[in-house]
């Protein structure tokens, strides 16, 4: 009969040959496939309105993380308070996956409009970072609704009153934040590499 060396060798060669047929690990771990994507893409729950975001900003909601996917210059010029800057071209950098794949804190992508935020949402969702949002309308909508809208009418309802209260406070917060000198803003730009710190091992 065959020796153990022969058996172990044969099995190892066979298995290592077979795993060549396996799909790339990086692509399949936790990722969504076509039916999965089609399902989540048609859900309306992926959007937050600017008023919802304004409320979260004003009440310092820690269950979301605003992610500005525009380029760094645009972010530096003006951004929503509390947002971090992960340009969409760099969104898959593994350094950021700690932010995007957080089971508790859900990212809210925004850009000037919907396009870039939508790109970030698509790419991240397909990667398996599910549960992220898009701020519908982006910064343009934010300006239109939160920054520049005024109440026009005879009597203000309680709901409207609450909305405008939040908008007013978000406005103040936003203006104060974006009026700070650039040197202070860059402090927020230095996003920490969240996951790298957790990786320990070897004999170090």
């Amino acid at each position, binding site marked *: 009969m065959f020796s*153990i*060396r022969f058996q*172990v*060798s044969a099995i190892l060669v066979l298995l290592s040959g077979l795993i060549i047929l396996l799909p790339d690990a990086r692509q399949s771990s936790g990722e969504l496939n076509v039916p999965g994507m089609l399902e989540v893409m048609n859900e309306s729950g992926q959007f937050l309105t600017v008023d919802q975001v304004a409320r979260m900003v004003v009440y310092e909601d820690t269950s979301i993380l605003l992610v500005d996917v525009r380029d760094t210059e645009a972010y530096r010029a003006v951004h929503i308070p509390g947002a971090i800057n992960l340009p969409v071209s760099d969104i898959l950098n593994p350094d950021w996956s700690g932010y995007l794949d957080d089971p508790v804190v859900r990212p809210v992508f925004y850009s000037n409009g919907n396009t870039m935020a939508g790109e970030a949402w698509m790419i991240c969702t397909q990667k398996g970072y599910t549960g992220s949002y898009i701020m519908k309308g982006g910064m343009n909508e934010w300006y239109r609704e939160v920054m520049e809208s005024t109440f026009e009418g005879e009597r203000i309802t309680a709901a409207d009153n609450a909305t405008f209260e939040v908008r007013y406070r978000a406005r103040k917060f936003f203006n104060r934040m974006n009026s700070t000198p650039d040197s202070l803003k860059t402090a927020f730009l230095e996003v920490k590499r969240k996951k790298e710190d957790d*990786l*320990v*091992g*070897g*004999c*170090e």
Partner: protein
Amino acid sequence: MISIHLEIMRRKPYMNPYLAGVLLGLVLLGAMVISGRGLGASGGIKYCVVSIVGAVSQEHVAGADYYSKYYQGGKKPINNWLVFQILGMVVGGFISGAVSGRLTWKIEKSPKISKPRRLILAFLGGVFFVYGGQMARGCTSGAALSGMAVLTTAGFVTMIAIFGSGFLFAWFFRKNWI
């Protein structure tokens, strides 16, 4: 006393090396799955030494960058993953020795050399090995084996360096072994 008692047990031969390799590979895979780390031994020795130095002289630890990083934020170096892993290794080795009847107090050496010579060489070997292991950020298990398992260049380079230099220097120490 224990050793003498167990001496009576029938000695079993070593496991076939390939099957032992499969077992070790599964343990390594288990370590990756459970904690995302590989295996490591020299690191555990280092943490023990750092703890001892810390217990003997607090000032020395505070004064040196190397030691103080292990005490940052009130950490205790003895409560390290690697330390507990080598504790487990002692237990695992003992169990294996017990079931195979290999528990004895003895100095294993070539009959051509004296006991002190063997012990001195073992001591020096230990000094060299752990020193080099710290330099390369891991020993045979921590850098070479675990590194190779995750296909890192560091793992393969360290492995080649260890065995390459071993073969190179083997000639000088041949009298001690054969």
